[in-house]
């Protein structure tokens, strides 16, 4: 749940159902969570799986500390990071991801996996992801493959000269 809330801070989305606590529902359309962020973090190939418990714990500790600093009353029914309002999640994430933060690298790695889940759906094959309406790829407008599962774009060029070439171009087309 904590990791879902972190993923939702990086690429936010709409709540999966009205009771959803991890996803803050800050924006419309599916976000990183619906795109498979946690599946990707857990995938054995990713290599992060073994560190996820301690990352979630660390995140909650930072959230507890953040709450104490701001005098926030965090709902004990959910993990502290999940209990934060979306704007507070963003502020805390900005602190953790800032240059100079001693743990920056960890939180960047988690943000990288989150973004990758959104923009590639790397826990599943891309054709399946597109066929099943993967939120990230779909929202980005990633165009589908041809029926054989390969991409081909027969029209790809404006097909005309669009600028003068550099005067010092060699006859072979290289810079001089």
């Amino acid at each position, binding site marked *: 749940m904590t990791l879902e809330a972190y993923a939702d801070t990086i690429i936010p989305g709409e709540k999966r159902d009205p009771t959803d606590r991890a996803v803050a529902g800050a924006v419309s359309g599916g976000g990183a969570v619906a795109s498979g962020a946690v599946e990707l973090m857990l995938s054995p190939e990713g290599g992060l799986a073994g560190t996820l418990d301690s990352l979630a714990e660390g995140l909650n500790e930072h959230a507890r500390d953040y709450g104490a600093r701001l005098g926030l009353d965090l709902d004990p029914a959910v993990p502290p990071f999940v209990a934060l309002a979306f704007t507070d999640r963003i502020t805390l994430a900005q602190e953790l991801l800032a240059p100079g933060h001693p743990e920056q690298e960890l939180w960047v790695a988690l943000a990288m996996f989150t973004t990758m889940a959104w*923009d590639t759906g790397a826990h599943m094959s891309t*054709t399946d992801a597109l066929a099943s309406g993967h939120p990230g790829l779909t929202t980005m407008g990633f165009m589908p493959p041809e029926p054989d599962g390969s991409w*081909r774009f027969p029209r790809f060029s404006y097909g005309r000269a669009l600028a003068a070439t550099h005067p010092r171009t060699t006859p072979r087309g290289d810079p001089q």
Partner: protein
Amino acid sequence: MTAHERTDVLVIGSGFGGAIPAYHLAAGGASVVVLERGPWLSADEFDHDFKFGSSSTRAFEFTMGEGMNVLGGNCVGGGSVVYFAAMPRAPRFVFERQGSLGRRMWPKSITREALDPWYDRVAQALPITQSTWDDVTYSGGVFAAACDHAGRTANPVAAAIDTDLCTNCNWMMSGCKFDAKRSLLLNYLPAAVDHGAQIRPLHEVQRIERSSEGAYLVHYTVVDPVDYRVQVDVGVIEAKIVVVAAGAAATPVILQRSEETLGAMPPAVGRYFSGNGERLNTAILNEDRVRDVLGLDRGDGLAYAANQIGRGPSAASWDRLDGSLPEFSRYSLEQLYFPPGFGTILAQAPDADGPSWFGPDKKEILRRWQSWLTIFIMSEDDNEGVFGPPPETGNADRISMQMLSRGNLRYEPTANTRHGWALADADIRDIMERDGLSRVLPWTNEVIGAYTVHPLASCRMGDDPETSALDDTNELRDHPGIFVTDGSAVPGALTVNPAFTIAAIAERAVPNIVRAAQARGVDVRYRGSLPPPARISRKAPVPLTGRDGQPVTVPSV
């Protein structure tokens, strides 16, 4: 002493720096073994798929350092398999560069004129073709039109791509499924195999040792074909000549690890690393302005919205490749495609309220991803990268099964480098924001530092032993018989894509390596032939052993 295999020439790495000497030495009659840490994939194994375990992670390496992250190939063919195949020659002034040395950094024997005949050979072998405007993709076209609108010039970029076979799928970072990209899998490598060279994939070299007879013992581990963190075997091969060509992010690390058994390395090993002054900007285009201001129309109601269509860089602006300008102010700007997975995280949302590279504003610009245009800066950086102590194996500690590792490269851009970047950023803004065409921001370096797909100069050539690890024949100083022929030999940033120059220098090094081999009793000649073109890439002929000890033939995951 334990039994080990013997060969005349051992080549470490199968990218441009490795494949070219491997071919010529095998063609000249030497026995050649190439050890490559990545898998051997052919066209039918190159996937259009982002899934972990497909060719996009098997063939690729992303090494995170401190302030610099390096992307490279990890497969037979090296960077040539995953690269975009843009192949311009380096401009004349590059060879006269001084950097902050205060004197010319290239060996005096190398100038553009001196290198041109070697460039010609590579151009014929791959082959590289001059592009026309018909070859320029929509994204290159938009960039060129924006340059023109701003009173600049723009050039179609020469490429090692057979455009008749190319489908403009933009999956070339996962390897080319259609064999349209003239990677080394279609020329030097198959020709080397035909002359008897053995290429062994999944063999990662760890260190080099001197034998009692003055030859070299090369120690390797064999890695599992799926989980590269797992080592399934070890071995040693004795060679009279060693060609180190593991790429500029790995070559110095192997040499550093070998110090204990080879003796001290020249001081420049693992220093002076250059990221080719590379930096990315993302323009988010206003489709209406593209139509109205630039007059562009795809013919189907769209002006652009074609980020996904194409094949890497197809147009570049060379206005600042002007030798009369001061050093650290010269650069080229090139349109580029970076696929999802690599291409989005560092892009920043212009005018963001909160964070610019994640959060709600980032999601908004992602909705317009098809209207993104990536502009790539290749400038004159200051060779400020330094490698720390080598990790236990390879050149980095592996994090994931494939693709992701953490290395010991430290890079803090100097004021010189930042000056060049600032000029180029401002130039891009002037071109791309003119008359409301787009909003553009550079990728943030604050998240993981700089990023390069063009690592160079970590073991460079030169005339001064203090600042160059190699002499002008590519031989490692104080270690006769060891040659370095990859990007690490190139003394500094090139202001253009480097593979053509790396390849030309490797071609130029071959007669020197042949002479050294002859001196060590190897029956080899320099024939000066070029590899015949192959139409299709071949499968690995070598059976491999997996984690369970069973033979495997590099399975598709």
